[in-house]
C-alpha cells in the first residue's frame, strides 16, 4: 500500500471514521515507517490544538451597535413598492396616452395626404442616416486598405485584452464573486 493511502486513513482517523480493522493496519504501518509516524504526530498535534481552542467573542456592546446600524425594513419595503409603481406607470402611461392620441387625432392621421407626407419624411430621414453610415464605413475601408498594418495592431490589442481579462479574473476570483450566492440557499 502506498504512503498516500495511509495519509488518507489518517484523515479518516482524525474524523473518527476509520474502521477498527483499518486502524490496526495504520498503527502497524506507523510503527514501521518513521516519516508517516512524524506526519501523524504533526496532524494530531494540530487537531488537538484546534479542538482545544475556544471561540473568540466580540466586544460587549457588539449587539447594540449592530442593531443601531440595521436599516428600516418597513421603509425599504415601501421604497421597493414605490419603485415597482413607477415601473408599472412607465409602461401604463404611454399606453393610455397612445390610446387617447389615436382617439383624438386618428381621423387626421387617416387622411391620405398626411400619411403620405409622414412616410416620405421617414424615408428621407432613413436616407440621410444611410448616407452618413455608408460614408463612415467607406472611409474606414479605404483607410484600412491603404494601411494594412492596422490589422496587426488590432490583433495586438485583442491579445492584450484577452490576456489581461484572464489575469483579472484570476485575481478577483470572478466565478465565485456573485453576491447572490451567499443568500440564495
Amino acid at each position, binding site marked *: 500500500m502506498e504512503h498516500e493511502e495511509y495519509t488518507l486513513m489518517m484523515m479518516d482517523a482524525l474524523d473518527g471514521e476509520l474502521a477498527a480493522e483499518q486502524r490496526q493496519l495504520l498503527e502497524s504501518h506507523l510503527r514501521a515507517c518513521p516519516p508517516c509516524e*512524524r506526519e501523524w504526530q504533526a496532524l494530531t498535534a494540530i487537531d488537538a490544538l484546534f479542538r482545544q481552542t475556544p471561540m473568540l467573542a466580540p466586544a460587549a456592546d457588539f449587539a447594540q451597535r*449592530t442593531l443601531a446600524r*440595521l436599516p428600516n425594513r418597513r421603509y425599504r419595503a415601501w421604497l421597493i413598492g414605490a419603485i415597482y409603481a413607477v415601473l408599472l406607470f412607465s409602461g401604463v402611461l404611454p399606453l393610455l396616452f397612445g390610446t387617447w392620441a389615436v382617439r383624438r387625432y386618428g381621423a387626421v392621421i387617416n387622411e391620405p395626404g398626411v400619411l403620405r407626407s409622414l412616410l416620405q419624411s421617414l424615408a428621407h430621414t432613413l436616407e440621410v442616416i444611410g448616407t452618413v453610415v455608408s460614408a463612415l464605413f467607406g472611409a474606414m475601408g479605404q483607410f484600412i486598405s491603404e494601411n494594412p498594418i492596422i490589422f496587426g495592431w488590432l490583433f495586438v490589442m485583442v491579445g492584450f485584452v484577452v490576456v489581461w481579462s484572464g489575469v483579472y479574473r484570476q485575481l478577483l476570483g470572478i466565478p*465565485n464573486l456573485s453576491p447572490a450566492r451567499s*443568500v440564495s440557499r
Partner: protein
Amino acid sequence: MNEEQVWLEQARKGDKAAFGQLIEAYQGPVFNLAYRMLNNAGEAEEAAQEAFIRAYTRLETYNPAHKFSTWMLSITSNYCIDLIRKRRALLLSIDEPLPPHPALHSDNAKGPEAQLMLSEQQETVQALLQELPEDYRQAVVLRYWYDLSYDEIADVMDTSVSAIKSRLFRARRQLADVSAGFGLNAQPETVSVAA
C-alpha cells in the same frame, strides 16, 4: 414554533428588537468566523455587522428548511472571502509587492482599540490559519469550531462534499508541514490511532 422561528417571523415584519435577539444568539459564532478568516478584530467586527445587516435586509430569501445558523455562517464566510480577494486585487492593482500573509491582516493596521488581546494559544492558531489559502481556511474553521459535517460545510461553501474533503485533506497536510515551526512537533512515546 420555537423561539427562534418567532423572532424570525417578527423580524420579517420589520421588528428590529426581534432581530436583536437573533444577533445576541449568533454574535459569538459570526464574529469568531470573521476573526478566524480576517485575523483583524476591527475588520472582523465590521464584517460580522455587515453579515447581520445583509441577513436582515434579505430575510425573505432565507429558506426555513435550512438551519438559520448555517445561513448566517454562509453569509459571513462568503462575505469574508470576497473581502480577502478584493483586498488582494487592490494590493496587486496598485502595483506594490505583495506583503507576506500576516502583514496583510495585521492588527497594527488599525488603532489600538481594534486589537484583541489573544492568549498564546490563540495567537498560534491564528498564525497557523494564516498559512492557508482562504478557501482551505474556511473549511478548517467550519470543521473545527462549528463541528459541521462535510455535508453541512459543502452547503455553507456552496460546493461539493468531495471538494470539501480535498480542501481539508490539503489544509491538514499543509498545517502539519509547518507545525514544527510553531513548536508543535510533539513526540509521544506510543503510537495510537484511537478515535
